[in-house]
C-alpha cells in the first residue's frame, strides 16, 4: 500500500479505506486499538469486580428482606475484627493453608529432585504422568474418594482393624481436611519444584564436587538455594488454593471446620448478606497480597 493511494482515498470502496488512512495519519491509534480489548476486559471484568466487592463491603442490608442498603459504614469490618468466631475461622484457614503448603513442599521436593536429576527419561515420563493423572479426574470425585477412605466404616479404619490396630476416626475432622488438601494440591507444588530443579546447571554441581563438597552439602548450599524460587512458586498455588477453598471443608470437614470461603458462601448463598461476605472476602485478598510480596522476595516470579 503506497502513500499515494492512501493520500487519495477512493470514497466508493467502502468504509475500510478511510479507516486505514486514519490509522496511518494517527500513529498511536493502531497499538491503542490492539490494546483496548484486553485492557477493557482486564479493567471492566477483572478490576471492576474487585472494586465493586470492596465498595459493597462498606454497605449493609435490610435484615428482613435482605435488600442491600447503600449506606456507608464500617460495621462489617468491625464485626469481623471483634467477633472471636471470625478470628477463629480466619486463623484456622490460614494455619491449615500454611500446614498444607509445608506438607506439600516436604513431599514434593525430594520427589521433584528425583524426577529432575536422578530418574531416567523413561521413568521421568512415567512419573510425570502419575503426578498429572489425578488432575484428569474431577476435584469432587477425588474428594468423595477420600470420604470413602476416611469415614467410620471406610478403607482406612478397615485396614487398621484388620491388622489389629484401633480405628483412627479422622473422618469429618480438620485432620481429614489437612490430608485431603495436601493430596489435592500436591501436583501444583511438584511441577514448579521440578522446573526449578531441572534448571540447576550441572556445571555448578560439578564445581561443588571439585571443591570437595559432599552430596548433602551440595544439596544444602547449591541445589536448595537455586530451587527455592520453585518451592516459593509452588507454595503460591498450594497456599492460595487452600485459602480460597470451601468445598473440601463442606465435604470432609466436621463440626468446627468452617473456612473463610464457607462463611462467605453462607453469607451470600444463605443469609444473602452480600456486604458482609464482601468484607470477609477482602481478608484472603489482603493475606495473599502480603504472601505474594514475600514470595516475590524469594524469587518465585522468576521461577514461574
Amino acid at each position, binding site marked *: 500500500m503506497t502513500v499515494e493511494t492512501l493520500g487519495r482515498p477512493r470514497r466508493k470502496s467502502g468504509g475500510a479505506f478511510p479507516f486505514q488512512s486514519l490509522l496511518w495519519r494517527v500513529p498511536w491509534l493502531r497499538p491503542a486499538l490492539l490494546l483496548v480489548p484486553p485492557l477493557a476486559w482486564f479493567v471492566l471484568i477483572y478490576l471492576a469486580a474487585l472494586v465493586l466487592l470492596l465498595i459493597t463491603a462498606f454497605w449493609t442490608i435490610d*435484615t428482613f428482606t435482605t435488600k442491600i442498603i447503600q449506606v456507608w459504614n464500617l460495621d462489617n469490618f468491625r464485626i469481623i475484627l471483634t467477633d472471636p468466631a471470625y478470628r477463629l475461622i480466619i486463623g484456622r484457614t490460614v494455619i491449615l493453608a500454611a500446614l498444607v503448603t509445608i506438607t506439600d513442599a516436604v513431599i514434593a521436593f525430594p520427589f521433584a529432585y528425583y524426577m529432575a536429576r536422578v530418574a531416567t527419561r523413561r521413568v521421568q515420563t512415567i512419573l510425570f504422568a502419575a503426578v498429572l493423572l489425578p488432575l484428569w479426574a474431577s476435584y469432587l470425585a477425588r474428594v468423595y474418594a477420600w470420604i470413602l477412605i476416611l469415614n*467410620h466404616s471406610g478403607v482406612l479404619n478397615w485396614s487398621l482393624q484388620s491388622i489389629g490396630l484401633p480405628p483412627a476416626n479422622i473422618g469429618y475432622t480438620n485432620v481429614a481436611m489437612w490430608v485431603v488438601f495436601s493430596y489435592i494440591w500436591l501436583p501444583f507444588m511438584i511441577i514448579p519444584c521440578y522446573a526449578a530443579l531441572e534448571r540447576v546447571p550441572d556445571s555448578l554441581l560439578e564445581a561443588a564436587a571439585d571443591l570437595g563438597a559432599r552430596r548433602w552439602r551440595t544439596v544444602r548450599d547449591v541445589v536448595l538455594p537455586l530451587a527455592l524460587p520453585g518451592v516459593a512458586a509452588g507454595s503460591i498455588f498450594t497456599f492460595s488454593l487452600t485459602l480460597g477453598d470451601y468445598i473440601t471443608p463442606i465435604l470432609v470437614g466436621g463440626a468446627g471446620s468452617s473456612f473463610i470461603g464457607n462463611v462467605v458462601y453462607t453469607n451470600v448463598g444463605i*443469609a444473602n448478606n452480600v456486604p458482609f461476605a464482601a468484607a470477609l472476602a477482602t481478608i484472603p485478598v489482603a493475606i495473599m497480597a502480603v504472601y505474594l510480596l514475600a514470595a516475590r522476595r524469594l524469587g518465585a516470579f522468576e521461577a514461574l
Partner: protein
Amino acid sequence: MKGLDAKPVHWLRLATTAAAALMVVTACGSTTTAGVTTQQPPTANMKPQTTIGTGEGALNLIAWEGYVDPSWKDQFQKDTGCTVNAKYAGSSDEMVTLMAGGGGGQWDMVSASGDADLRLIYGGDVKPMNPDLVPDFKNFQTYFQTPPYNTINGTHYGISLQWGPNTLLYNKAKFTTAPTSWSVLYDPQYKGLVTVPNNPIQIADAALYLSKKDPSLKITDPYELTQKQFDATVALLKQQRPLVKKYWDLASDEISLFENGDAMVGAAWPYQTNTLQADGKVQVADTIPSEGATGWGDTWMLATKAPHPNCAYLWTKYVSTAHVQAQQAISFGETPVNTKACAEMESLQAGSCAQYHADAPGSYFQTIKFWKTPIATCPDGSQSCIPYAQWVTAWTSITA
C-alpha cells in the same frame, strides 16, 4: 403455635425494622387490620391471571431435594409439554437468595417453606396467585388454604403443597428403645455421633427443647425469643457443638453419615428416614419426642418475573391433585394438604395415611411449631425479639 384451630386468632405479627406492622388474619381467610399500619407487599396490586393459557414449553423450579421426582414429573412433562428444570436448594435462605438473585426472570416457582415465605413476599420476589385456577384448592385442609405464612390480607402468594415435622432420627442398633426426648442431641454420652442441620432455623429446635426443659425461661414460641431466651438457647447449642460429628447441608449428607456409621442420632426430615429404610444398610427409625417438634409448611410460589406462568399454573394444578399429592407425600415422607389424598395414599401404601397424619385432627397441629421468619417484634408488640439476621450471625459463631 397454640390454639391453631381456635376461631379468630392472632396468627401473625409481622414487622419490618422500619415500620412496625401488625396484622391479624383469621382462620377462614377474611382479614382485619388491627389499628397499626399494615405494610402492603410490593406485589400486592398485581392482578393474578384468570385463565391458564397454553404452556410455554419449559418450567424452571427451585425446590427441596426430592420435590420434583421423576415419578410424577415425567407424567406432567408428557401431559403438558412443559420441560421441568429443577434446582435443589439446601435451605430456605438459599431459596430466598436464589429468588432475589434470579429475580431477573430466571425462575418460575419456588417450593418455599414458612420461614422463607414472608421474606419472599415482602422482598417482592413473588406475586399473588389465583387459587380459582387450581381445582383441588377447595379440597385442601382449611388451615392450608390460607395459612398465615403465604396468605396476607386475603391475598394468596402461593398455593400450599405439603407439610411435615422435623423428626429425631436414630440408629436402632444404638438405641434399642426409641428416645422420647430431644435431650439425646445434647447428651455428652453421644459425643461425636450427633448430626444436625447446618441451618440457622435449627436454633428454634433448641429453643423448643429449652421451653420444656427450663420453664423459667418462659419460652412460648421458639421463633420469638427475647435476648435472654436467645442467649440461653445459643449457650445450649455451643455446648452441643463438641458432640456434633457434622452439621449436614444436604439431606444426602445425613444419609451417608448414618450409612457409614459416623452418626447415630440426629435431627432429620422423614425423607431421610424413608431413604435409609429403603436402602436397608442400617436400621433406623424416627420419632417426634415429647417436647414436640418444629415443622414446615411448603408453598409453591410464583416468581414476580416468571417467564413461564402458564406452565407454572399447570404445575400447581397438577401437584395439587390427590394422586400427585399422595405420591409426593409417600416419596418424601410428608403430609399432603389435599384431604382427598388420604385414600390415594392408602391405595399406594396401606397405612400411610395414618403414618403421615394425613387424617390428623386439629390437635395434632399443636405439637408442631411451624417454621416462620423470626422478626424483631415480640408477641407483646415490643421490638425486643431477636430478628433472623442475628440468628444467622449466632449460627456462624456456634458452628465456627
